[in-house]
């Protein structure tokens, strides 16, 4: 009933519809889908080595370098049913975790643990001879394909090349051949005295990953996004200036659907930062820019989607204008809601929720770390202002999550309008240990348990997070460690 009422609101005039929606969201607390009340997050697992002082970034100062930078996690993604969790790292490796069913009803965590399922080298470092530059093997994005048979498939990409990997299990092998012996050597025909029927012998589980398709040589600039279409046949790959459309089966051709490269590169002022297909409308996709705009395009309208169908942009607040206004308005991530009715955009200081029906301004804005606004100059100096944070929806589109510095991450409840700051740290790693909310003191007297802005560690940043598609399980990448947190009630 609530959904139908929302639908009615969307068809009303903007002003009236918005007011009614506002009232409905108050009533929607009971309909939040999480059983009402706030979630209490507990530690579940942590993957990765324990190391002090790891920094992100291309050239960490030497005294910080105690961990191999290749281990720094660069992307995290659950698959469609949440049973698999994939991570990519700076060294070009993909590690897939699979949730084991819990052994007994009494074991902790009750939902089962994520254990390593497969590890493989997805991309290797390459050298571009024309430009005399290295091509990083860092995995920028992983996207799962929906499962069509016993195998799992995913798309992984580095700066230049997208690859389709197929992950298959093998737990049997053929045995009992007549012409070959147990080690596989050909038998001497004279030694064969009896005839037997070969059979399949169970072996221990072997998980193999094989590259099935390589989509290469289509991007001059660095790929920042890949997105699978809802038709499950095509996908897009977006770089700084262009977005290409591929068919999964065809690797030697791609169709360019967006090109914002100016004729004269000296006039370049804007780049594409993220792109995503609509979750159900196979002809709609959005892309965000470094100038804080989100453009929605319809592929039915025109083959080349340079002209947007809708542009989502919030007019700038003149009181907050500074030299860094443009940099902090640059959108680092954009995600459609599961329903397809909303999308969230992450810029440097906030997360904004947009209604696809209304492009004049966001319907909700959540401040992630407003206390950094007065520190923008220092953050510009140390390059932190260019950090690209991701954001995530929960399964029911009622909550949003994003990362911050000092290994903090933030959760926003759209219904209760409450926000929560938690920390991914090795200190809270007892199972079932409820995470304590953290608070940043913005000035004046620092209360107990608060941390002051100047004590924040800007080298510990949480850029990549993922939320299970249906349950309250979140995966948070803190440099080279992967933390998994769960809802207390289910642990």
């Amino acid at each position, binding site marked *: 009933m609530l959904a139908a009422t929302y639908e009615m609101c969307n068809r009303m005039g903007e002003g009236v519809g918005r007011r009614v929606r506002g009232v409905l969201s108050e009533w929607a607390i009971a309909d939040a889908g999480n059983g009402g009340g706030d979630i209490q997050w507990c530690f579940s697992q942590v993957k990765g080595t324990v190391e002090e002082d790891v920094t992100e970034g291309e050239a960490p100062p030497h005294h910080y370098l105690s961990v191999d930078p290749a281990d720094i996690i660069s992307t995290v993604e659950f698959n469609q049913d949440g049973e698999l969790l994939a991570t990519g790292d700076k060294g070009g490796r993909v590690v897939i975790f699979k949730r084991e069913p819990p052994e007994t009803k009494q074991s902790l965590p009750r939902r089962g643990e994520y254990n390593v399922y497969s590890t493989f080298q997805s991309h290797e470092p390459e050298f571009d001879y024309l430009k005399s530059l290295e091509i990083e093997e860092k995995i920028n994005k992983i996207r799962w394909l929906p499962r069509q048979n016993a195998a799992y498939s995913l798309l992984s990409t580095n700066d230049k090349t997208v690859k389709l990997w197929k992950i298959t299990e093998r737990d049997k092998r053929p045995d009992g051949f007549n012409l070959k012996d147990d080690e596989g050597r050909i038998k001497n025909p004279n030694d064969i005295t009896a005839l037997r029927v070969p059979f399949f012998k169970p072996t221990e589980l072997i998980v193999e990953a094989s590259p099935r398709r390589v989509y290469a040589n289509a991007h001059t600039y660095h790929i920042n996004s890949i997105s699978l279409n809802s038709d499950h046949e095509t996908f897009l790959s977006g770089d700084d200036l262009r977005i290409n459309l591929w068919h999964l089966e065809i690797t030697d051709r791609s169709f360019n659907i967006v090109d914002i490269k100016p004729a004269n590169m*000296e006039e370049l002022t804007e*780049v594409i930062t993220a792109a995503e297909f609509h979750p159900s409308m196979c002809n709609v996709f959005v892309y965000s820019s470094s100038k804080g705009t989100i453009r929605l395009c319809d592929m039915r309208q025109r083959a080349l989607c340079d002209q947007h169908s809708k542009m989502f942009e919030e007019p700038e607040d003149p009181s907050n204008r500074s*030299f860094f206004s443009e*940099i902090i308005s640059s959108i680092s991530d954009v995600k459609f809601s599961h329903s397809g009715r909303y999308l969230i955009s992450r810029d440097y200081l906030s997360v904004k929720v947009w209604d696809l029906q209304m492009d004049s301004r966001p319907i909700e804005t959540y401040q992630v770390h407003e206390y950094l606004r007065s*520190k923008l*100059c220092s953050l510009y100096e140390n390059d932190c202002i260019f950090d690209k944070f991701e954001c995530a929806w929960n399964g029911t589109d009622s909550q949003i999550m994003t990362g911050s510095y000092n290994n903090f991450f933030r959760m926003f409840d759209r219904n209760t309008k409450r926000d929560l700051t938690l920390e991914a740290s090795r200190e809270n790693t007892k199972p079932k240990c409820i995470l304590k909310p953290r608070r940043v003191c913005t000035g004046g007297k620092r209360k107990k348990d608060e941390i002051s802005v100047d004590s924040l560690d800007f080298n510990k940043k949480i850029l990549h997070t993922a939320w299970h598609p249906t349950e309250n399980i979140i995966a948070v990448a803190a440099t080279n460690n992967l933390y998994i947190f769960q809802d207390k009630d289910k642990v």
Partner: protein
Amino acid sequence: MLGSERRGTKRKLTTMADDPDDQADRKTPGLPYAAERQSCFRISLVKLQAAQRLIEPSLRRSVLICNTLKHIEDELRAEGNLGLLHSAYAFATGNTPACAPPTPIRQPEPMPLTLNESAAEDIASYIEDLNNDTVQKEERRKTNKLECATVNQSTGSPEETAKDHSPSCMTLTNAQLRIQSSSLGANTVQSDSINLDEIFSDLDNSLYDIDFLTPYTANIKLTPLSEDDVSNSFSSASFATHQVTTNQTCRQTEEWNELDHIMEVLVGM
């Protein structure tokens, strides 16, 4: 707390933010707007000249830095602070090679050569002190020549892809070029460089040895140009060949011109 009265008041970090007069005007405590803008400007220029990296720098980052620089430039222009702008560039060019575009191509044997900080400051203050029109014009022509040389260098670059990947500084330098051309009444690139030749033709630049400055150089690497780039960027071949050897950059010659000019004034020629 109980103990605090006995132990005395806790020390607090006093910042300029405590000053009530300035508080209202400032978005960020600690620095007045103009100083912050200047610092931001300088940081942006340094960022664009970051040491050569093996991996292609992020296009998004370069574009954002460039846009920030342009924004500050526009603000300075709107305020009528063109003099400030040029001195800022002079200071920056004294400190860092502002007009060598960050090409993605890694060049061998980078030559560390810049003027030391105090020399740059002297030049900047010298320029500010002199309100003489001709001197200002010359200074503008010099910075103009800087930009011209860079533009020529960039267009002369054999690599199309290099141009693709370094729009940032070229955008900036071209913007500067347009600003200055219009303000000077559209002097052509050619005529500017020829004027400079006339001014300095009687100076013997061989007196100014590189080694004189090396002990004081900042640890910033330049992007050396190939021989072709250098010879293409200068209109008058004699000027170029007299001044520039294979390993030296066009930036260096601009340093010499500035230095020459100052020496000329100081010596009273």
